[in-house]
């Protein structure tokens, strides 16, 4: 319980204008896109590492829970303050401190929005490859906390590949540097622990990121298929032919329809499967890549192929895919989005299973997928006023995750465990695996004040999932 005197102490550290505790403000930080809710007791907006450290020293003394937060777009309930306490909002630490293209590094504060960095880099001919669909609003600190992906991670890899150094504040307020601008810092790769840890190990206050030159040329192919199966088979065939496009996105008929309702990206609304394929590289090499890919698509009964080469055409095609989640929310504000990921050669059977689950649970599922990576994003739509539908949607989501695990996959490719998938962790990890994660947690945050109740199921939490065999 946060006392009035403590809020005053926070105001003294940060200035009164950087501390919110009115009920209407607290409400605004009590939710995200998941159906979960939790009320914080105070919101703080630090503007410097020193302020983050001072806040952490105070909360550490009082053992008050803290939820570090960027833009809250994680899609897994990771920033919902389920234990009350403090929401530490980093969006005002949003300065790009340095862009050093000769060294291929950018140094930023955690609150910088992903797209703002991209916009600063583009005129210099550079890009920060991780490009989550939420890049218009999601922050780089959040991207690191979630180890965010995005369409271009197919070719370039996820956020973890692009974090060279970081400054973090530990639960007790200590400031620590991990890595740096130079590569291969000796000792343990502690960055790796922080990246994707959803704020349970420390708070990132500065990042040194790797940036790379923009590709010389990029084209987009939009390949249209009569069935989802043909489209996903084409994905599988492209990957196994050894072609690595910049991005390889799949959308089903429902998704295309939803997108066209609000964005007009020019997607067909009568085809069951559409692939958005970005080719990138030297101009000289794209012709043949395009030819090889369209040949594979034709073998899989492609109905239509469009090629976009101009900046405007390409932007419109990307706008559709990137605006998908927003477009869904306009039509159906409540949905469950799953993020299970399967080995790349399992994309066809995985999508088939998702279709079967939709039928069995009588729910509407809109599928998009970072298909080249085997990363599914089935959106299970439901009416918020119908308890029955909500229950069916949640149930269907669980079954889909089980399907992914059975195929040798994972619970989440980029959205995180957060709150939403906590109950499924024991289906994926054995007690010893989780115990090792808890050891790490206890080193970084022995009092468990950082984002408690997220990512890691509590240690003594009854028997493990019966579907997982006991270790030998």
């Amino acid at each position: 319980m946060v006392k009035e005197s403590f809020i005053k102490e926070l105001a003294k550290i940060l200035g009164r204008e950087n501390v919110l505790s009115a009920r209407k403000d607290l409400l605004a930080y009590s939710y995200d896109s998941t159906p979960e809710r939790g009320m914080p007791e105070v919101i703080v907006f630090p503007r410097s590492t020193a302020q983050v450290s001072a806040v952490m020293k105070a909360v550490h003394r009082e053992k008050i829970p803290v939820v570090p937060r960027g833009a809250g777009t994680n899609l897994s309930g990771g920033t919902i303050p389920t234990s009350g306490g403090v929401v530490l909002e980093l969006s005002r630490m949003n300065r790009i401190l340095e862009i050093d293209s000769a060294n291929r590094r950018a140094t930023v504060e955690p609150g910088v929005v992903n797209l703002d960095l991209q916009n600063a880099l583009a005129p210099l001919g550079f890009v920060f490859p991780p490009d989550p669909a939420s890049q218009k609003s999601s922050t780089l600190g959040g991207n690191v906390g979630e180890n965010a992906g995005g369409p271009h991670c197919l070719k370039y890899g996820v956020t973890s590949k692009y974090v060279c150094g970081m400054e973090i504040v530990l639960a007790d307020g200590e400031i620590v540097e991990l890595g740096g601008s130079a590569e291969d810092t000796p000792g343990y790769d502690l960055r790796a622990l922080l990246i994707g840890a959803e704020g349970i190990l420390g708070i990132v206050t500065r990042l040194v990121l790797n940036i790379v030159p923009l590709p010389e040329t990029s084209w987009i192919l939009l390949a249209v298929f009569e069935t989802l199966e043909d489209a996903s088979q084409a994905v599988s065939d492209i990957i196994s032919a050894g072609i690595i496009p910049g991005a390889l996105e799949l959308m089903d008929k429902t998704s295309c329809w939803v997108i066209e309702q609000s964005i007009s990206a020019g997607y067909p609304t009568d085809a069951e499967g559409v692939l958005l394929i970005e080719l990138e590289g030297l101009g000289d090499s794209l012709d043949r890549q395009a030819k090889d890919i369209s040949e594979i698509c034709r073998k899989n009964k492609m109905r239509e192929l469009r090629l976009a080469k101009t900046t405007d055409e390409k932007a419109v095609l990307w706008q559709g895919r990137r605006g998908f989640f927003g477009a869904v929310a306009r039509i159906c504000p409540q949905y469950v989005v799953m993020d299970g990921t399967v080995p790349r050669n399992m994309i066809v059977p995985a999508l088939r299973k998702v279709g079967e689950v939709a039928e069995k649970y009588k729910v509407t599922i809109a599928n998009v997928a970072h298909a080249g990576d085997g990363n599914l994003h089935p959106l299970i739509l439901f009416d918020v006023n119908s308890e029955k539908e909500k229950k069916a949607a949640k149930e269907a989501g669980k079954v889909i995750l089980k399907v992914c695990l059975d195929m040798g996959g994972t619970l989440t490719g980029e959205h995180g465990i957060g709150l939403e998938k906590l109950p499924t962790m024991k289906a994926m990890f054995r007690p010893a695996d989780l115990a090792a994660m808890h050891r790490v947690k206890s080193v970084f945050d022995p009092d468990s004040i950082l984002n408690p109740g997220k990512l890691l199921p509590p240690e003594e939490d009854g028997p493990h999932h019966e579907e997982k065999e006991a270790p030998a």
Partner: protein
Amino acid sequence: MDKTASPEQPALGPRLAGIVGPENVATDRQVTKTYEVDGLVPAAVVFAANTEQVSQIVKAGNESGASIIPWGSGSKQAVGPCLSSADIVLCLKPMNRIIELNTGNFSVEIGAGLSNAALQKQMGEHRLLFPLDPLYLETSTIGGELATNASGPRRAAYGTARDIVLGITAVTPTGDIIHTGGRTMKNVAGIDLCKLYIGSWGTLGIITEAVLRLFPLPEVSRSLCLTFAGIEDAFRLVARLLISPLTPGSVELIDGVAGRNSAPIGDSPLAEDEVRLLIDISGNREEVERHLKEISAMAGANQVRHIATLEGEAATRAWNAYRGAHQAVLSAAPSAFQGKASVPLSRQADMFKAIKEIGQKYRVPTGIRGHCYNGILYPYVVAGDDHAVSIIGDLKKAAADLGGFFIVESAPLPVRKSAGALPRRSDRALMKRLKTEFDPNNILNPGKLGEGAD
């Protein structure tokens, strides 16, 4: 601080034999002597055939307080900080199976004792590439390479182990078997212990199996061999490349001193005051042609002395000679040592010059090899032991002044003992706490974290 290897624990030998069979335990000093590391001769060498055996051996070590040194091919054992104790060498060489190759997913699951060369060869038959290519890949095991975060020229295009490893099975210092990561390209479930194990030098656990990413073999490969009179010209070319949309596979540098004991690197001799860039260009035909044309033009604009385009056998020979230079220069001078300087990309020329100046100050020849796309230079210092510690001090200072660091890798034991500690940084306390939490009895590779303050 260093204690000598403790005598064999009476109950331990039979217990180890009970786990792996007596034929897989050696206590005869003639055998154990060949596993001497940092001046310590282990009391026993044990060969494990599976993860379960590793777990039981580690549990036995914990119960008897015997330190355990995980061992692959041994190629990195004399690198980095020194061990403080070595009772049992635990060799994973027998765990050398390909457990599952999934060509459709571009992944392979292997036992940690598999050698890199054996994996490369088998993957090549499927037209697949495992991109990790550290120096000793002919003998080194994948487990050892991951544990030491070893990398090679291809890191310019494919990254390091942390970008290539999808999953790891490990035995913790208390004997628990844990599975981290998985087999998917993306995976953010839980804390990423997988990457923690990469580069932890066997101090947090023993990697027993791993799932690795594979890539399609490129359609065409060529190598450009560019010789320069001056370092400035070579690094100006590198700087141009780094901001261009070209994507070379590797960009390596070697100078005449580092190359003087090896077979010819390329088609022409390399004078002691020259430097050579060896650039791999791989991809489809059109891409490779463009790269050759543009990089040659850039080289021409930067006073290149000699340009050669190599392919096939000639390219392989050049790369083998390049890789062999490391051992050749160290073998030629027993008192030589090699370290690693990592600096921001744009400071590589400055670091290069600093190394040469330090060499001149102490009147010792210095050779340099490096990964130019990663800001990493490997100085070879042909120095008597009496100067080594001062030289290392100067190198550390020079690298730190340029925003990077320098560490000692291969060096005579006395040099590593007196100058092998890792840089003092604000994250060291966290590392020590992790080590203590994972390994409360300090039995796995004690000392290897470089606990000694600098």
